[in-house]
């Protein structure tokens, strides 16, 4: 399974939740598969999906899922200790780890070589870290959503991309509809 297959398998579970999605192909794929106001698409700032998701989770009570990539987590490694030490039990960080920088042409990442992001997350103090294979990701996500505990999921999958178009929605519109949906859900 490649990332788009993983996203497709997760849709029935995450569709009703707030999702902060990583820059590039992950956002474009999610936008194509299941565009809705509860999705926040990153159009810039590689590495900050986990930070933005944590901020959203800390500020309100609804569940927030950050869909990140291994390359992006490597870009913002400081995020893992911050997440570990500022526990938000309504926050799930899903790292789709395909071992490559997918959006830039599948150059290999260190996560696809010697570095284990799950072990790094554990060493940073994240208490609930689950590494799984792509085929099991939906089941792991369901358990994480049911558990009401902050969870870091590292989903190992194959690298590869599907053709998708860029997101043309105005960033302020993406932000505003996400904020409006959050406000309504918390009302």
């Amino acid at each position, binding site marked *: 399974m490649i990332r788009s297959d993983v996203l497709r398998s997760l849709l029935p579970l995450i569709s009703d939740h707030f999702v*902060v999605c990583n820059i590039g192909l992950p956002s474009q794929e999610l936008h194509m598969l299941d565009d809705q106001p509860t999705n*926040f698409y*990153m*159009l*810039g*700032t590689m*590495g*900050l999906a*986990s*930070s*933005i*998701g*944590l*901020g*959203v*989770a*800390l*500020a*309100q009570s609804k569940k*927030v899922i950050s869909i990140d990539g291994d390359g992006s987590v490597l870009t*913002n490694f*400081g*995020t893992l*200790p*911050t997440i570990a030490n*500022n526990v938000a039990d309504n926050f799930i960080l899903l790292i789709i780890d395909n071992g490559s920088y997918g959006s830039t042409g599948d150059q290999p990442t260190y996560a696809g070589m010697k570095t284990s992001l799950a072990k790094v997350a554990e060493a940073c103090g994240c208490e609930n870290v689950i590494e799984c294979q792509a085929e099991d990701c939906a089941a792991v996500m369901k358990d994480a959503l049911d558990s009401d505990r902050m969870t870091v999921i590292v989903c190992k999958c194959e690298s590869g991309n599907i053709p998708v178009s860029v997101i043309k929605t105005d*960033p*302020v519109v*993406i*932000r505003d509809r*996400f*904020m409006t949906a*959050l*406000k309504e859900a*918390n009302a």
Partner: protein
Amino acid sequence: MSIDAKIVADLVKHEVGLVTTVPCKQLAGVIAEIDRCEDIHHIPANKEDEGIGICAGAFMGGKRSAIIMQNTALGVTVNTLVTLTQFYRMPLPMLISYRGELGEPVACQVEMAVHTKALLNQLHIPTYHFHHESDAEELDRILQYTFMCMKPVAILTDATFWKGY
């Protein structure tokens, strides 16, 4: 009221509910005051762009946010300020220690001070410079302005403002 307490009181007055910080000797008093403040959720960040990401998320989640950082970190925040905070139009008060100004003991800090205002100007970020303690009286209106115009706003506080190191 100490200047640290006054700054935090203004943040509380404008309903800033989450502040990310990166350590700073000059801003240590404000950071400690934020830590003590029950109305503000304090999240120490490992890097300034990470802190701005958390602030962006908190703002979208319904909590006004702010960041406390040094001007030497301005370089690492440029992409985040432009492609997140400005692109999605979000307000962000940035309380920044202006290292490298008059009274600075470390020569290397001067190099970034020389570029600080030019960079902020290039980024079209409204910038205020607190040199005398009385300048802090403007903070109230600066915060009001930030949340009115939904922009990042920089408040540079130099060594003279903090009465040395």
